């Protein structure tokens, strides 16, 4: 599958990521999922292409953000479909990338309060 769309988290969202829910504060995982990731992901599934997520340039990825965005997406859409249509880039930190992919593969390991 071809990459036809891209989200650069640093520039398209924020370089300082927040917690899990909108009610927790700015730039939460829920905000990222609902405003940016989910619409682009659904378009990628519909039109059968890959969505590239650039993870670099961010201060760090709080576990609550990762779980509230990529984990929640995986719970809603299924890990296989998510990994089929999302591809990641992280030249800065390979462990960060691994952590996000693991969260997609096994999202139930964290408690989702909502």
């Amino acid at each position, binding site marked *: 599958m071809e990459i036809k769309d891209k989200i650069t988290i640093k520039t398209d969202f924020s370089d*300082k990521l927040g917690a*899990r829910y909108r009610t927790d504060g700015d730039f939460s995982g829920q905000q990222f999922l609902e405003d940016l990731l989910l619409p682009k992901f659904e378009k990628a599934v519909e039109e059968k292409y890959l969505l590239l997520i650039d993870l670099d340039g961010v*201060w*760090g*990825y*709080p576990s609550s953000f990762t779980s509230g965005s990529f984990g929640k997406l995986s719970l809603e859409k299924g890990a296989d479909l998510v990994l089929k249509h999302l591809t990641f880039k992280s030249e800065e930190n390979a*462990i*960060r990338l691994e952590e996000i992919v693991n969260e997609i593969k096994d999202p139930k390991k964290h408690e989702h309060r909502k």
Partner: protein
Amino acid sequence: MNTGNKIFLWIGFPATFLIGILAGKTIEYSHYIKWDNHIGLVSGLSLIVTTAIGVMIPFVIKKLIDDNRGIKFFVVEEVKDLIKIVSSIKDIISNAHQKSKFEALDKDKIIFLFHLAELKIGSIADQLEISFKKQSPKIIQKLKDALSEYKRYLTDNSGMMISTFNQVDDHFYQENSNEYSKVETSFKTTIHLIHKF
């Protein structure tokens, strides 16, 4: 076997052999030591080879042990640096507890320190892969799991990431100290495992 050992073997063994021949010739022309003609060529060569091996083995083994010890020491220092990075997180929380104030900047620093810790584990993984390929996956997974567990506690379960979190109370301070202790212990036991390679 690294390049140093290869050079040592390629140069060291022929050099020892030549020294053996030289010693043989010296003995041949010496008035004090005489060659016993009853000793066959094979026995003579066997003596030379045995002597050469006896001299070389301690040097080769010592060099291998010294090389391994040096690499292990270096990797252990890297794990100690990792402990320092993670202990900086505990320091930020301790200071905030003392000041009774936790600022947004403290949160940013903690998130960035986790990023630095992840980079350090990546660096340790690259180094272990060169010299201890077989043992590397187990060690790296242990480091990753310990860090990930602490990160999950602090940046998810503890509630520290919520924007209204602006004070480190006694309960949070104690709980974080316990969680930090777990990650620190795990890193320290990894140092013991590296020494056992």
